[in-house]
């Protein structure tokens, strides 16, 4: 089988709820999606979602290294891409390009075998432990409680993750609200919190210790900067809860400083870290060091396909149970707070091309639809800059109305 072509389609859509973290308390209501499809001479297509900011890099990698190759040789092709990136490094948008191509190749490999990806990877068909992740900094207290209540009663979630970091009093109250929402499905909900690198290490130690007086915390995610492996270690040494980090690292190379300095207790793994091939390298290394891994949020929750072949897999992030648009569907279902795998060949993602045609846009990447639309927020790593009145007001606006852009660097 030979790879014959590449198709990249982008579009923008309104999200089901406003999402944000400590870096964007006013949140965002739009998402941009990039669909990468690799075609072959045998009528099979490999699909991956992502890489919207790396389209020239994807095209370049594809044309020079992937076109004409056999998709079953995915690891060898991964190595070709990594070696090509050698001098400028496997990081940033280059990693995005490698990741999305690798995911599409694994999808093809599974489709050639006429089996679901979890089986190609050697996994078993077992339910995948998951947690509900509200991305809820812009949400009101009432919405936070209701969202977790709904995730608990409708989908059976027994664990949740709250965005924290700007306002300690509000965070303490909202952790309690997440807990009361999740109490609808279990007596002992697991409460994760995520500061998205907003604190310094000493801030993190103070804040989390205070939270730990009132709650048992499942983990604190990114309590300080991703590169601050000494700070992360210091936080881990000083609090009871595990420190979870890694989501913004690009590859196994980046994780070495965490591993070698015992900086982190739970390793975040995703297919955005040099693809599925890269994700397994990181997970195996963590396994050797007796560290659990958690898989980050993914379109259609397809990371569940990877979870069942990682011996040290702990839990997977679910941001949305149902697709926000009519274009993408998944055969990974949520039941009893777990992701249940299907038998559709490949990674389980299906694209409705008729719907896609209607809404595709050639260049949708406005800042409004980026994951962290306003960059790092003032005060990060220094002091807690409370959400402003303008930000609070913007957070309550209905979806699809005028976007609020906070003044950059103007405290």
């Amino acid at each position, binding site marked *: 089988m030979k790879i014959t072509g590449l198709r990249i389609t982008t579009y923008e859509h309104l999200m089901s709820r406003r999402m944000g973290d400590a870096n964007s308390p006013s949140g965002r209501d739009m998402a941009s999606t990039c669909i990468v499809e690799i075609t072959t001479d045998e009528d099979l297509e490999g699909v991956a979602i992502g890489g919207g900011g790396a389209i020239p890099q994807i095209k370049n990698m594809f044309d020079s290294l992937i076109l004409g190759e056999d998709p*079953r*040789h995915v690891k060898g092709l991964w190595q070709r891409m990594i070696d090509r990136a050698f001098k400028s490094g496997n990081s940033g948008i280059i990693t995005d390009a490698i990741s999305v191509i690798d995911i599409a190749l694994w999808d093809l490999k599974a489709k050639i075998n006429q089996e679901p990806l979890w089986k*190609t990877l050697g996994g*078993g068909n077992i339910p995948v432990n998951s947690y509900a992740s509200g991305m809820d900094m812009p949400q009101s207290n009432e919405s936070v409680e209701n969202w977790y209540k709904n995730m608990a009663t409708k989908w059976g979630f027994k664990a949740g993750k709250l965005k924290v970091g700007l306002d300690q009093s509000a965070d303490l109250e909202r952790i309690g609200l997440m807990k009361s929402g999740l109490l609808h499905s279990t007596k002992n909900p697991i409460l994760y919190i995520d500061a998205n690198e907003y604190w310094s290490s000493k801030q993190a130690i103070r804040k989390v210790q205070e939270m730990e007086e009132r709650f048992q915390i499942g983990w604190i995610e990114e309590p300080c900067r991703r590169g601050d492996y000494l700070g992360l270690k210091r936080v881990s040494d000083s609090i009871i809860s595990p420190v979870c980090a890694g989501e913004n690292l690009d590859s*196994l190379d980046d994780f070495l400083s965490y591993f070698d300095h015992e900086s982190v207790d739970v390793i975040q793994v995703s297919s955005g870290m040099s693809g599925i091939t890269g994700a397994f390298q990181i997970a195996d290394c963590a396994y*050797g*060091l007796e560290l659990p891994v958690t898989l980050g949020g993914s379109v259609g929750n397809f990371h569940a396909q990877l979870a069942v072949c990682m011996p040290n897999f702990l839990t997977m992030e679910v941001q949305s149970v149902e697709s926000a648009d009519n274009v993408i569907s998944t055969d990974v279902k949520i039941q009893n707070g777990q992701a249940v795998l299907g038998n559709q060949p490949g990674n389980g993602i299906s694209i409705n091309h008729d719907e896609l045609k209607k809404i595709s846009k050639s260049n949708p990447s406005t800042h409004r639809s980026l994951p962290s639309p306003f960059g790092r927020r003032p005060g990060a790593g220094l002091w807690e800059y409370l959400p402003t009145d303008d930000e609070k007001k913007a957070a309550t606006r209905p979806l699809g109305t005028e976007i609020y852009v906070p003044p950059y660097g103007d405290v």
Partner: protein
Amino acid sequence: MKITGYRLEKYIYKIDRGVADANNPSGEELSMGSLLFLETDEGITGIAPASSEKVQDLFQVIEGQDPRSVVWLWKKMDDFVFKGGNQGEAAAAIAAIDVALWDLKSKINQEPLWQTLGARHGRTKAYASDIGYCMKDEDIYNFYSKMADKGVDAGKLKIGLSMDDDLRRIGIMKEALSKVRERPFLMLDVNEYWSPKNSIKLMNEIEKHYEIFWIEEPARRWDYRGLRKVSKSVKAAVATGENLNGITDVTSLITNYSVDIINIGVRQSGITGARQCANIAHAYKLPVTMMNCQANYMAHLAAAIPNHVMMEVFGTPDREHVFKSWDNEIQDGFIVMGDSYGLGLEIDYDALKNLQDTDYGRAPNSPWPRREGAGLEVKPLDEKEVDWI
């Protein structure tokens, strides 16, 4: 597809040359062989050229399961032996089952295993390994010369008991390989016979004469401080790991900076376990080297490992008596695999039967005990042990 049954076959075979190292310099020609067959409800059989009686305890874990879920089944077996540990006979059984499952998985896909594992080419760099401390000087030359004729530019010699003889024989290996490369890669293996200080002293002597690529097992397998000390005090890389059980053992050597090159093989808990070891080594920027095995079947995995440096080759056919064919050969210094499905091994059942019916009059002396003086002071070679002193 479901796993329905298994079959174990054991046999004794006579190797074309004696196998020997510092712990048994006089060598042994007889060896125990075993095969594991995993049967399925669709008539496809998975084969592993390895086995253990312990398979009978573990079979319940995989019975009725889909062999394509091999990584998950590995985890189930690893959990099953939790209390006693994934070591010894249990480890041998898990490794054999894992290999047979991977063989099945790629046979189901109708592709060679290297492709199932995602490699782009079915090839990996080879190095020649005599494993023949008992071999005469001219046999050493002939062996490496024969391998050099196939483009192999790297060799590993068993040494450790006599410095003058070792130096001479390293030179013989070098001379034979020099027709491929002016400075061939020279590796040495003492099989845990030396103490760390002995290793430092003797390696420093050797390094006055030769550039050595790696010294293998210059201290005991778990002596992470000793191995680290050797690594800091010699120019050659320290290679070790062949006697460890898998990633759980390998990790402590890596995190203590005790090793420069990791030996991996089927002993590291099968293909799944060996791949885990390669991945943690990759994080620490360490190369791995695949151990020798019958018919070079582990080359399939080696081809799919980004940090694999070169694989040990004993030479075929020497130990391949029960195989009708194995789909690989040495070309230009690389093991090149073909497109046969799975591991590419075909069993010669008549030969197997013949071997099982053969009476050698004694059991193989394998594995052999540790030689006197190991880890203490080198006990000089005796003329009764080898005839090349």
